[in-house]
């Protein structure tokens, strides 16, 4: 067992650390919301009226009314995003001036084992999962607060080999850390209601042992200091139901992931601060890297079934938003701890993985349409739902906007009529059409790009530019990010539109394991997945060119983004490009300059656990069936079979004979996993394999058995 002495332990900053929950009175909150939404309304209405005026000046038609109506929600989203960045920038100036000093307050005492850290996993790579758990464990130990926490790995893994490896590494980690009574493992037999069901199952069985629960994803990391700050905040604020941190991306495996990492580190701080500015204690939950108060969560946050049927109704896919809304409905506060920096996650390594994830999220967010008008929910929760829905529906609206704009322009050009411009209908505006158009264009450009410069200024004023590689590199990084995000935006628009349509048509999104490590994507794979976007880009180019070549120039960012989808994806998944970016410190982030100890501990752990698994003579399901130790471990973790009927015993015997004759590899993975849940069957199969010398036994079984032997005698010839 590893124990650290006093000199090895790190000091917890306690009350002098970052502010988790901002202490703001109701008057200030009201005033902030008034300012935010008033400025949103003014900017939105201003843009909407100017755009309507422009359309009116060139002759309003039914198509132009459609364009304007499509413009309204798009413009609303744009203004909302801008204002979040703007007010976030301002609020961070205020916080920088009012930083707390050491010794202000004594942190409250934390009860031992009051907090459980749950890690739901589903067919993840076991060495990566347990390397991260070890890193967090050690970080808590070095902070001297390990006593407060226990860990629970909640497995929904369906792959039999992966499952057994989880068990083996769990035991290995327990032994290594001396965490026999602190690190627990449970694998669910039936994957009901996916991740939310996984957590509910845990809470039903063990919930009352703990007061707080920290939910982590398989790729999440949190520092001991951040965990300590979260628990302290929950103790100090009895009405806090949930505190969400803002995870930063780390350990990028590709240029695409580096890009996401840079975006997360450079821009997210001001957006997160702006989000907190208006929602205050009506925050949201993102499903992981958050702490939850268990009692009200159990009492009030069990998910209802939505009306109608899946995919749009039925079981809720994106459970996190709903759980936050239910927590608020129960009268508890949901906060965003954007000041805490020790919270991390990993990004999908390429665009395809990102889109696969977005497909699920799109379906999940569309389901929230049912909840927009549900009784009893707070208006902040409804706004979170709406923002989530518009994140995807907005793409479809944008697609529609482009299409109708093209049709309108085509009609205007086809008509052959000259453009007659009428004076502006706006009071006291006498400028010409070009001026007004340029003003609107500049305004839209400001809404789109000013947040980036605000983030740049925020980093400069805080003296953090060196963490992004210095002023020159940070600016270049920002420029490159802007270029790629501009080119990516139309690709996202195209696929999000498809996702919205397919979801509404009843096509379900499958929950597959996130692929976090694939790099160097083959051209064929990218072309097959993204070819349709390129075709759309070519059609758009042809259509716009046929109307007017200048129009194609105006559409060029969209056209280029779509056409270049395939090469961009391949380049941004290239290991050599990643290496070059890393060497040049492009998209450089603070976590690279100064990696937290919890992050540093992950990679050695992954290599170590891979080596542990590689050194074993038998792997996966084979080990659970044949190896005496692994069989003992695996069967100890299964519940006794409740079915004692003769029919079941007969079925079990049949399957066993089939396995002995054909090998377990002949069973489909789902059936094998089901078999492996049967403790008695696994014990008996293990016994039969070792005791029986049947000539009909499958050669693979014999070979696996003999892999332990130091020599191979005549049995191989029988």
């Amino acid at each position, binding site marked *: 067992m590893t124990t650290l002495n006093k000199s090895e332990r790190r000091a917890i900053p306690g009350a002098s650390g970052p502010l988790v929950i901002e202490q703001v009175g109701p008057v200030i909150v009201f005033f902030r919301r008034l300012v935010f939404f008033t400025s949103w309304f003014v900017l939105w209405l201003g843009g909407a009226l100017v755009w309507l005026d422009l359309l009116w000046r060139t002759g309003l038609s039914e198509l132009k009314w459609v364009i304007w109506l499509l413009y309204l929600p798009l413009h609303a989203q744009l203004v909302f995003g801008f204002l979040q960045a703007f007010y976030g920038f301002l609020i961070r100036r205020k916080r920088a001036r009012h930083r707390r000093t050491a010794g202000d307050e004594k942190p409250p005492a934390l009860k031992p084992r009051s907090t459980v850290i749950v890690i739901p996993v589903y067919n993840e790579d076991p060495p990566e999962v347990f390397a991260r758990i070890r890193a967090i464990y050690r970080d808590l130990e070095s902070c001297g607060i390990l006593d407060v926490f*226990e860990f629970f790995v909640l497995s929904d893994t369906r792959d039999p080999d992966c499952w057994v490896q989880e068990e083996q590494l769990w035991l290995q980690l327990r*032994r*290594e850390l001396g965490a*026999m009574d602190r690190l*627990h*493992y*449970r694998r669910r037999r039936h994957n009901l209601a996916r991740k939310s069901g996984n957590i*509910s199952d845990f*809470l*039903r*069985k*063990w*919930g*009352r*042992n703990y007061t707080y629960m920290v939910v982590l994803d398989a790729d999440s990391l949190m520092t001991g200091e951040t965990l300590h700050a979260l628990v302290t905040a929950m103790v100090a604020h009895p009405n806090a139901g949930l505190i969400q941190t803002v995870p930063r991306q780390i350990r990028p495996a590709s240029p695409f992931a580096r890009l996401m990492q840079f975006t997360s580190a450079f821009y997210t701080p001001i957006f997160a601060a702006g989000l907190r500015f208006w929602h205050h204690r009506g925050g949201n939950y993102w499903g992981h890297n958050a702490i939850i108060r268990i*009692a009200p969560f159990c009492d*009030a946050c*069990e998910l*209802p*079934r939505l*009306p*109608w*049927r899946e995919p749009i*109704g039925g079981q809720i896919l994106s459970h996190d938003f709903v759980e936050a809304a*239910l927590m608020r409905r129960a009268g508890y506060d949901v906060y965003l701890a954007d000041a805490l920096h020790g919270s991390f996650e990993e990004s999908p390594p390429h665009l395809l993985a990102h889109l696969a994830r977005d497909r699920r999220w799109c379906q999940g967010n569309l389901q929230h*349409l*049912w*909840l*927009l*008008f*549900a*009784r*009893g929910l707070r208006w902040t929760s409804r706004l979170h739902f709406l923002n989530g829905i518009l994140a995807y529906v907005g793409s479809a609206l944008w697609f529609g906007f482009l299409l*109708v704009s093209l*049709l309108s322009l*085509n*009609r205007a050009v086809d008509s052959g009529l000259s453009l007659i411009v009428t004076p502006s209908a706006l009071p006291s505006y006498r400028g010409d059409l070009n001026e007004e158009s340029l003003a609107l264009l500049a305004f839209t450009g400001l809404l789109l790009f000013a947040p980036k410069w605000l983030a740049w200024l925020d980093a400069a004023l805080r003296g953090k530019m060196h963490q992004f590689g210095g002023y020159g590199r940070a600016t270049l990084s920002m420029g490159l990010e802007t270029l790629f995000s501009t080119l990516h935006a139309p690709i996202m628009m195209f696929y999000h539109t498809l996702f919205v349509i397919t979801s509404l048509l009843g096509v379900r999104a499958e929950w597959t394991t996130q692929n976090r490590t694939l790099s160097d994507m083959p051209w064929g794979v990218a072309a097959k997945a993204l070819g349709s976007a390129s075709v759309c880009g070519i059609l758009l180019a042809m259509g716009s060119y046929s109307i007017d070549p200048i129009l194609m120039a105006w559409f060029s960012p969209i056209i280029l983004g779509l056409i270049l989808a395939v090469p961009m994806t391949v380049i941004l998944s290239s290991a050599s490009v990643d290496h070059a970016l890393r060497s040049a410190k492009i998209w450089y982030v603070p976590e690279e300059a100064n990696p937290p100890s919890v992050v540093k501990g992950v990679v050695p752990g992954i290599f170590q656990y891979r080596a542990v698994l590689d050194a074993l003579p038998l792997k996966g399901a084979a080990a659970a069936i044949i190896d*005496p*130790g*692994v*069989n*003992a*471990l695996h*069967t*100890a*973790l299964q519940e006794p079979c409740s079915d004692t009927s003769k029919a079941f015993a007969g079925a079990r015997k049949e399957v066993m004979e089939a396995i002995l004759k054909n090998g377990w590899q002949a069973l489909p993975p789902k059936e094998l996993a089901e078999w492996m849940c049967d403790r008695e069957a696994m*014990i008996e199969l293990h016994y039969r394999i*070792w*005791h*029986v*010398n049947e000539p009909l036994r499958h050669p693979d079984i014999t070979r696996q*058995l*003999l892999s*332990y*032997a*130091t*020599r191979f*005698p*005549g*049995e191989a010839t029988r």
Partner: protein
Amino acid sequence: MGSLTTNIPFGTTLADWDVAYVRVEAYFIALGLKNKLLLSRLVSEVLSAAAQCEGIGRTKSTVAAAVDETEMRVANWFREVLALPAEPTASLLRRGRLALLLLPDNYSWESEFLTRAPWSPPFVEQMRRNYLDVGPSFNGSLMVARNLDFGPVSTLAEGGLRQLDRHPRLRIALGWMLLIGLASFIFFAAR
């Protein structure tokens, strides 16, 4: 084992005993034994004892007899080390194997294996302490979804959608109408 090579039981062959040797050796290696001298001695003892088993070569194969003898010895040893006289053999074997698995890496226990008492106190303490505790005791909470009124808009929408479900032809017709409407809009808008 010298007597076994010269005086094998009736109904068995040297080849049978070779197979049994490999099986027993594999079993001990699977438990974690690495020392070859220890392995060969233990295997010899097991096979010699198995050769005395009743019915060997007639009602019981050499491999079955050898592995049975192995497991009996290992179980008895676990019984004494773990001080569990009343535990059934099957669960004792599992518990003992787990206890060995839970020993720290590089812990040297081979010299204690299948030997008589006394064993080294730290070894006994480790084995008896090593018990796999999967999780804390159950102490559950009740989680039941509270009623949520989805509101009149959602209720109306649900009613409409369920009606469409009951009339699939109507649903298909509406879908086609939507598609044709969209295509018509695009057609006439482009003119």
